[in-house]
């Protein structure tokens, strides 16, 4: 099976080579060849995944002594299939979408090279291969985003991506160098085995090696997955072709979650790093969601939505739900890819018809006119708070009776609870002829989603981390003191309950906003609409640095 992994990676490379060498002869047929070979790749990747699911084996293929290793394990098998499938969809979409663009052949060659690199990245079994592919993804993305060589804007934002990615590559290089120095090998399975056998064997700067390495890997994952302060490139890369945006948002940006999972044996011995990841992910999720709501441009809004989702993904890693992060990145890849690929036609359609049915939904969503007669607010608030909590509890309980012992699961339950409550609140004042039917439909949908999500997430955990002891280690690494956790959870629960009661009360009474409150809101909106000035600050720093270099060169007469 390890040879199959090599074939899966090799096919898109073959397609890229054929496109480059025969591009002049094949011309537009390059796309067909590329799609055919990628279809074959996806088929083989599916076969590979099926083999992994049924046997659960881990094998490796070494192309050289110590590096050039391809790993065949559940994580790589799953990711190979996901990457191949998303890339195939993007290829098929691009065939017609790019037909009018110049550089058609170049585009498909780059797309194939990107696919090969991503496939090799997820199957990398050693640090050198991982570094090379991790790095090349940034370079190839830069070239793909700059597909329109006439556009300075496209290149400007492609540069932001390249620079952030290069910045994120550096901690990974340091982590790799530290691991090699400590264990004398580049092979990931050998390094992980040594760490699991004796985690405290090596120290760096007075800290345990796994702690330092995990912190560096986390930093690399933050840059790749657009975490707050390293996110500015993501919403501005819309000048590139739509298929590239789709590939980027559906696949490439999720690599942070993959990296954390790949280094899971390091993270389980990195006391404290996971907590920092949780905080960074949480801040990113909130900032990304807030910025998404403030956008008027659909593609930029999608960009910030991705940022928020990436925050959730990193946060899931932070609470020890590593496999859930993989499920999240796949689910996000599928729906975000669909949204991007469909955004063009939706914009086109909306110019003639917005597609929103008149009456109930239109008046509620577009006109923002709630129903004149609302249900009793206290009853609705209680309903909103109790029903999602009950559904979530039972869905988790049936899957795993002792889920209460996992702090991460409890934290994620809070998010599920809030999401469910938000759903209830958003729909409770919709105009409807039959209120019971409406709520029944909402409840059934919510229950199906929760049960599906819980069961699939559990299946992912069993597949990716079959060893129960290791699963327990991951959750233990993400945990905090039980008493402190209980107090925090209780406080958060009270805050959520009070918050929703206040929200409902405010909705029904509609008290007039005070002046100071209005002013604060205006100022806050100003800051949000300027994206917290993060991009502006970076631009200013870059401008000053270049001006400084310019002045220095002038003093030294450009020699």
């Amino acid at each position, binding site marked *: 099976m390890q040879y199959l992994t090599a074939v899966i990676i090799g096919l898109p490379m073959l397609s890229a080579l054929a496109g480059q060498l025969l591009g002049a002869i094949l011309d537009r047929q390059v796309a067909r060849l590329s799609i055919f070979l990628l279809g074959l790749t996806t088929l083989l990747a599916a076969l590979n995944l099926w083999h992994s699911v049924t046997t659960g084996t881990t094998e490796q293929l070494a192309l050289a002594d110590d590096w050039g290793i391809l790993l065949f394990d559940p994580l790589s098998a799953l990711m190979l299939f996901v990457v191949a499938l998303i890339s195939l969809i993007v290829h098929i979409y691009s065939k017609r979408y790019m037909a009018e663009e110049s550089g058609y052949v170049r585009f498909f060659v780059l797309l194939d090279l990107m696919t090969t690199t991503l496939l090799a990245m997820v199957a990398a079994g050693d640090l050198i291969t991982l570094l090379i592919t991790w790095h090349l993804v940034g370079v190839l993305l830069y070239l793909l985003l700059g597909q329109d060589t*006439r*556009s300075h804007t496209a290149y400007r934002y492609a540069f932001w991506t390249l620079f952030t990615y290069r910045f994120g590559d550096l901690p990974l*290089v340091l982590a790799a160098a530290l691991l090699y120095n400590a264990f004398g090998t580049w092979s990931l399975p050998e390094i992980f085995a040594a760490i699991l056998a004796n985690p405290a064997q090596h120290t760096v700067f007075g800290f345990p090696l796994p702690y330092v390495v995990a912190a560096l890997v986390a930093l690399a994952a933050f840059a790749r997955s657009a975490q707050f302060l390293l996110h500015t490139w993501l919403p501005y890369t819309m000048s590139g072709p739509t298929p590239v945006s789709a590939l980027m948002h559906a696949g490439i940006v999720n690599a942070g979650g993959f990296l954390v999972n790949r280094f899971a044996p390091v993270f389980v011995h990195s006391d404290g790093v996971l907590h920092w990841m949780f905080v960074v992910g949480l801040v990113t999720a909130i900032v990304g969601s807030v910025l998404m709501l403030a956008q008027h441009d659909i593609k930029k809004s999608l960009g910030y939505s991705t940022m928020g989702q990436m925050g959730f993904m990193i946060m899931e890693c932070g609470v020890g739900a590593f496999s859930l992060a993989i499920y999240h990145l796949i689910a996000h890849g599928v729906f975000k890819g669909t949204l991007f690929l469909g955004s063009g036609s939706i914009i086109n359609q909306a110019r003639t018809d917005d597609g929103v049915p008149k009456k109930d939904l239109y008046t509620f969503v577009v006109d923002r006119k709630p129903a004149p007669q609302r249900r009793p607010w206290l009853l609705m608030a209680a309903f909103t708070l109790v029903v999602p909590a009950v559904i979530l509890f039972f869905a988790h309980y049936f899957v795993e009776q002792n889920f209460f012992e996992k702090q991460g699961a409890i934290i994620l339950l809070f998010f599920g609870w809030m999401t469910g409550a938000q759903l209830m609140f958003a729909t409770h004042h919709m105009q409807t002829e039959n209120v019971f039917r409406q709520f029944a439909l909402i409840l059934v949908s919510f229950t199906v989603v929760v049960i599906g999500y819980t069961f699939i997430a559990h299946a992912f955990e069993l597949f990716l981390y079959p060893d129960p002891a290791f699963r327990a280690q991951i959750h233990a690494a993400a945990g905090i003191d039980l008493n402190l956790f209980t107090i925090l959870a209780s406080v958060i629960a009270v805050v959520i309950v009070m918050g929703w009661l206040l929200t409902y009360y405010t909705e029904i009474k509609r008290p007039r906003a005070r002046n100071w409150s209005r002013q604060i809101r205006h100022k806050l909106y100003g800051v949000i609409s300027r994206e917290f000035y993060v991009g502006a600050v970076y631009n200013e720093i870059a401008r000053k640095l270049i001006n400084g270099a310019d002045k220095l060169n002038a003093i030294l007469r450009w020699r």
Partner: protein
Amino acid sequence: MINYLANMGDYLYLLITALFLPLFPLNILFHEMFARFSSRLIRSLLLLFWPLPGLALVGQSPDLEPPAWLLSWALGSSILSAYRSLALRDVAIWISFLATSAWALLWVIREGGMSFPYPSYLLAVAISLPLVLLTLLTGHIERQFGGAHIALKLQLAARTPRLAGLFVAAVLAVVATPIFPTFFVLLKMITGNVAQAPAIAAVILLVWLLWSWSGARILQGIIVGGTAQSQAIDLNLIVTWSYALGLIGLAVAGLGLGGVLL
């Protein structure tokens, strides 16, 4: 008197070494010479051979210990050249700055006590070869357009796509993109120092980041642009394939070097 002469000899030795493994401000001499000679051949020879005397001097005097501050100076020189390259607009000058920035890092081999199974010349050549290739390509641009300067708004991608493609690949090779040789040289330097002297590893990473930044600025200035007013004669197929094979050779050499070094 003998001590004085011996000290003088040591200083002279260091001065010559610092000229060929160029430290600021002695690197100005290399920048000046590189700009003065417009011949592609002379520039290529300069790039290939300039650091070799420096490495030979370092290698032939194992007893002579350079002062500790020299390594800081070398790293500072490398950062300075990389930083100054951010504001450069002429490709030829940019190449000379990248060269001095990279060669200054070769002091790390000596000072970091790193060991290689092969002569350190190999590392200098590995750094110089992508620069030579870029110099040759820049020569084509200079001949065709009268210069390789951002202000000329060359818009190479629209006017000479083959030359543009090769130029992009060569710039990527120069700024230590995997799998080109400079990447493996830097990785070896980082791996060799990260445990004993993490500050050195951090400086090398910073230099690497600055190279990428300045490389992207050069690419954007030379390659990108709207529809060109006048078409230009692109490289013919034979020349294009020669350069392409050169780049493939560099990539293969990079992997080979990686196998040796890591």
